[in-house]
């Protein structure tokens, strides 16, 4: 493409030195005055327009973590040597890498694309998948699966009708086209997410140890290449604030308001990168996400020998009117930057040719310690790359516990009006179970997940609705991984420290329930504005809780993402620290499914763990319109023991299904295990109520942690209970699987003695919640959004 460099008023370094008085639009670019002065101080002169562009995007909250950094350090500090033993790459790189053994490693990470998905649901969600997958590729890994933790406003709010279908088809449209099975996620509805939906995306990849690549530019004289899609005005905003850079008469052309993803380009990029890794053609590699070329050049340079020289006119453009500053800031998708030895350049070009990927050689690695960017031979950037990539501002934002927190915690469910008329008789309890299962947060999400490919790749051993997504890594040995993401924002709102640990505990428990040994954590911290000291307190508490929790469980945080400013008109979302846990299977054939098996008639059902009166923040309380009190207690030692039991039971083939207890408590877990394959059960609450001193209502709906249900053949009962008693872990035989009755029958010390719910009837209400909202009209919406 022909590009003219003459239509810009090129602000060179020389020019900057001689025109110190020139005003630059630093405020419009989001920099604070003192930040701008620091840049001037670092450079010893005013920045050029291009330098200002780089610093402004790299020092943004999103790229610099300036509000969160001081807290996130704990993830590194609260790590023991023992926790690090399988960690090949920790926090700081594009994604953490964990050793799986047998020469295999796994990398995974969660990221948010919240605001873009609110503006344009389809493309926002699609490019969210695209971005996280590129992080995974840049570690040298083959991406093998994605997950999508989602949160929307009230299910009946009109805006949810606009946002949800678009987000879901965007995630499907992009992920399906990449050939990545979707193995799980979350769907939560709560009015606090209206106007601030949370679209988080997790990607997981696998690699052989020798394929590991890092983002650094080493080897003086090595060449720097940009490849993939062309650079357009994406992410710069509707109008260019750097318009002052342009002095020709034609108005600067419009810049896109949103980014459109090209999943085909990304799929080709994946295969192309894997071939590069396999043929050992790249020394270092970096994906281009937020802050595009600014980020890639400054990070590669500062992680390597420290110097790089780039000629910016070499960048292939989609929009020839882009100014140098805009090129540096552009967030166009589906691009990568790599460092290649001169000797490999030809082979590199051959791989590009084979896959039909465009590329351009931009410059080379130097030993000057400077990042020099030229425009047609004139120097427009001359900086120490560390000052751009790593020395951004760090804020110790003030924080304090909200004054209302005490009142909130004092307002428990039991003393509230919501507890006035609790179900107590057989009939009332039965109705309450049905009501619970038709809550939007408990309902069948297959209307959503059926839009995602779960088979592609042929290695998916578990996916929704099981507790964890499970992927086989090695086809010969069955070595594999299980992953789950979780967070209950209501718990975190009641107590952010505990809430974060509960998110961790649940994800850990889900992974262990499937039979995998938990190994590593990635998190996506979604919060309101850090400039509000109360929100900042929520953030600080959540991070502290998560870091402490990881230390207790002995699994390190390997990476993650922070999303702040999720608030509108002063109304913030619940603190939502989404936690993803990855665990390992020696052989995924051992994975434990969550549903009662069709052939399991008569198997014994055991409840593991203890039930206390813990309804604050529960799904049942939500149904009654109440939120207050303290979240369930967290006992990570108990979670660990429970995990060991579930993992051993899976490894030794003792149990045939298992499901953890979380939202909705025992009632939900029993119903879900039955709904999976339409296999019923007969259970009795008497012993449980007596042992734990709870009433039948509490037994069914309390959300006490550290619990799971398992079903096992009678021949295994003795071995199993020996194992639980050896660990002094409470295990109670609750009843049996009933594959004949087609119903859920529960008896206990309540009026009427027992209630039964037909599975057909239950399934009907449980599975119609989402389709009844998002049918018809929505299809037309989808129609016009499709190609």
């Amino acid at each position, binding site marked *: 493409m022909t590009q003219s460099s003459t239509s810009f008023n090129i602000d060179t370094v020389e020019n900057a030195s001689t025109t110190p008085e020139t005003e630059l639009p630093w405020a419009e670019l989001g920099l604070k005055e003192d930040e701008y002065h620091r840049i001037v101080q670092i450079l010893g002169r005013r920045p050029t327009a291009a330098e200002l562009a780089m610093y402004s995007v790299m020092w943004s909250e999103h790229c610099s973590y300036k509000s969160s950094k001081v807290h996130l350090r704990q993830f590194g500090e609260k790590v023991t040597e023992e926790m690090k033993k399988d960690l090949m790459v920790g926090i700081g790189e594009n994604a953490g890498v964990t050793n799986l053994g047998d020469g295999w490693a796994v990398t995974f990470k969660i990221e948010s694309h919240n605001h873009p998905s609110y503006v344009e649901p389809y493309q926002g969600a699609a490019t969210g998948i695209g971005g996280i997958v590129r992080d995974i590729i840049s570690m040298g890994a*083959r991406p*093998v699966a994605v997950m999508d933790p989602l949160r929307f406003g009230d299910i009946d709010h009109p805006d949810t009708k606009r946002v949800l279908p678009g987000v879901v*088809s965007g995630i*499907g*449209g992009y992920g*399906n*086209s*990449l*050939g990545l099975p979707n193995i799980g996620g979350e769907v939560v509805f709560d009015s606090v997410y209206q106007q601030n939906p949370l679209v988080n995306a997790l990607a997981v990849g*696998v690699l*052989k140890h020798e*394929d590991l690549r890092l983002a650094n530019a080493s080897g003086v004289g090595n060449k720097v290449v940009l490849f993939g899609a062309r650079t357009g005005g994406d992410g710069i905003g509707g109008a260019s604030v750097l318009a002052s850079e342009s002095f020709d008469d034609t108005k600067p052309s419009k810049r896109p308001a949103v980014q459109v993803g*090209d*999943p*085909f*380009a990304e*799929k*080709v990029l994946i*295969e192309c990168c*894997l*071939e590069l890794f*396999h043929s050992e053609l790249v020394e270092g590699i970096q994906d281009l996400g937020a802050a595009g070329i600014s980020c890639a050049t400054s990070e590669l340079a500062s992680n390597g020998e420290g110097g790089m020289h780039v000629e910016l006119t070499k960048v292939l453009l989609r929009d020839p009117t882009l100014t140098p500053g805009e090129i540096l800031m552009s967030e166009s998708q589906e691009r990568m930057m790599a460092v290649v030895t001169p000797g490999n350049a030809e082979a590199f070009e*051959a791989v590009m*040719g*084979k*896959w*039909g990927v465009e590329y351009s050689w931009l410059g080379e690695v130097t030993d000057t310690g400077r990042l020099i960017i030229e425009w047609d031979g004139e120097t427009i950037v001359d900086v120490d790359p560390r000052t751009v990539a790593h020395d951004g501002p760090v804020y110790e934002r003030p924080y304090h516990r909200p004054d209302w927190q005490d009142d909130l915690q004092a307002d428990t469910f039991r003393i509230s009006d919501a507890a006035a008329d609790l179900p107590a008789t057989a009939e009332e309890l039965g109705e309450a179970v049905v009501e619970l299962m038709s809550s939007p947060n408990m309902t069948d999400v297959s209307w959503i*997940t*059926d*839009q*995602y*490919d*779960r*088979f*592609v*790749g*042929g*290695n*998916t*051993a*578990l996916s929704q609705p099981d507790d964890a997504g499970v992927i*086989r*890594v*090695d*086809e*010969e*040995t069955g070595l594999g991984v299980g992953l789950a993401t979780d967070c209950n924002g209501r718990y975190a709102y009641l107590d952010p420290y505990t809430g974060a640990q509960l998110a961790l505990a649940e994800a850990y428990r889900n992974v262990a329930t499937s039979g995998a040994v938990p190994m590593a954590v990635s998190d996506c911290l979604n919060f309101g504005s850090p400039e509000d000291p109360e929100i900042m307190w929520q953030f600080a508490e959540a991070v502290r809780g998560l870091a402490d929790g990881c230390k207790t469980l002995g699994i390190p945080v390997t990476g993650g993402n922070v999303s702040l400013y999720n608030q509108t008109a002063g109304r913030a979302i619940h603190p939502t620290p989404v936690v993803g846990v990855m665990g390992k299977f020696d052989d*995924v*054939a051992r994975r434990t*499914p969550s*549903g009662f*098996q*069709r*052939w399991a008639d008569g198997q014994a059902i055991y409840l593991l763990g203890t039930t206390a009166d813990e309804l604050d923040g529960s799904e049942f309380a939500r149904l009654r319109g109440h939120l207050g009190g303290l979240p369930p207690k967290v006992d990570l030692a108990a979670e660990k023991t429970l995990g060991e039991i579930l993992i051993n039971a899976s490894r030794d083939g003792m149990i045939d299904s298992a499901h953890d207890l979380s939202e909705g408590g025992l009632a939900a877990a029993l119903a879900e295990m039955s709904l999976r*394959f339409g296999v019923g059960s007969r259970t009795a609450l008497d012993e449980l109520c007596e042992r734990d001193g709870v009433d039948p209502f509490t037994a069914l709906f309390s959300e006490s942690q550290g619990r799971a249900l398992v079903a096992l053949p009678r021949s295994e009962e003795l071995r199993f209970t020996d194992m639980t008693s050896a660990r002094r872990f409470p295990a109670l035989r609750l009843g049996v699987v009933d594959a004949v009755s087609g119903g859920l029958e529960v008896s206990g010390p309540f009026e009427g003695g027992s209630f039964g719910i037909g599975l057909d009837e239950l399934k009907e209400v449980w599975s119609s919640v989402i389709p009844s909202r998002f049918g018809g009209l929505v*299809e037309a919406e*989808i*129609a016009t959004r*499709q*190609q």
Partner: protein
Amino acid sequence: MTTTPTDTPLIGEFTAVTPSGPLEGARIGVITFPGTLDDRDAARAVRLGGGTPVPLWHADQSLHGVDAVILPGGFSYGDYLRAGAIARFAPVMDTVVKEAGAAAASSSPLPVLGICNGFQVLTEAQLLPGSMIKNDHLKFICKDQVLRVENTETAWTSQFTQDELITVPMKNQDGQYVVSAEELEAIEAEGRVVFRYVGENPNGSRNHIAGVTNERGNVVGLMPHPEHAVEAGYGPDDATGLREGTDGLTIFTSVVSSLAGGSK
């Protein structure tokens, strides 16, 4: 430039079932277009079926002497324009059309199976009648699908019994099979419907058609994915449990044995 892909799968090797005896001689090509997704899965299925998968590259005209060809699923060229529309112009397709199409000189023309996107490519290339449009509900849908095998004469279905019911995963957005009234009549009259959806029509396809064959019976298109139902633990659910279904494997053992049996 030689363009046969050299990459070995990074996710382990294909499950090791060493082909033996006469079967191992069945070499089945699996074409990769840019954007193809299920090529590894198809190759694995061939191997599990006892044959030898041979990777074929879209830009290479040569079929490297394979005995049969599979066009796997995916989103070739992003399914942009129309599903399969750009892929059908690939150089390898010229050879496929030559060796498998109506004008193929051989008395036993090349067996070709197009799965999902591969089926769409075959209709775009007019090796098979009709075309595929968006599902009537417009959404991408991934589910376990029951099919009836109605034609057991093709190389790909010879080991099924007539009207056998099988369950294989289905996953697509443009899976609604349409064809002109006259052609539909001909297809039905000549018994060229190979697979039919059982139960509720999942996408609005004419006459519930899930798979068809050409007049000579060597080219078969199938919308659902048999290659995702070849290994217990990773397939569709069946009566024995979660993901245990392997009904799709018979497609691959069929072709391997009909090649070995000298029907080619």
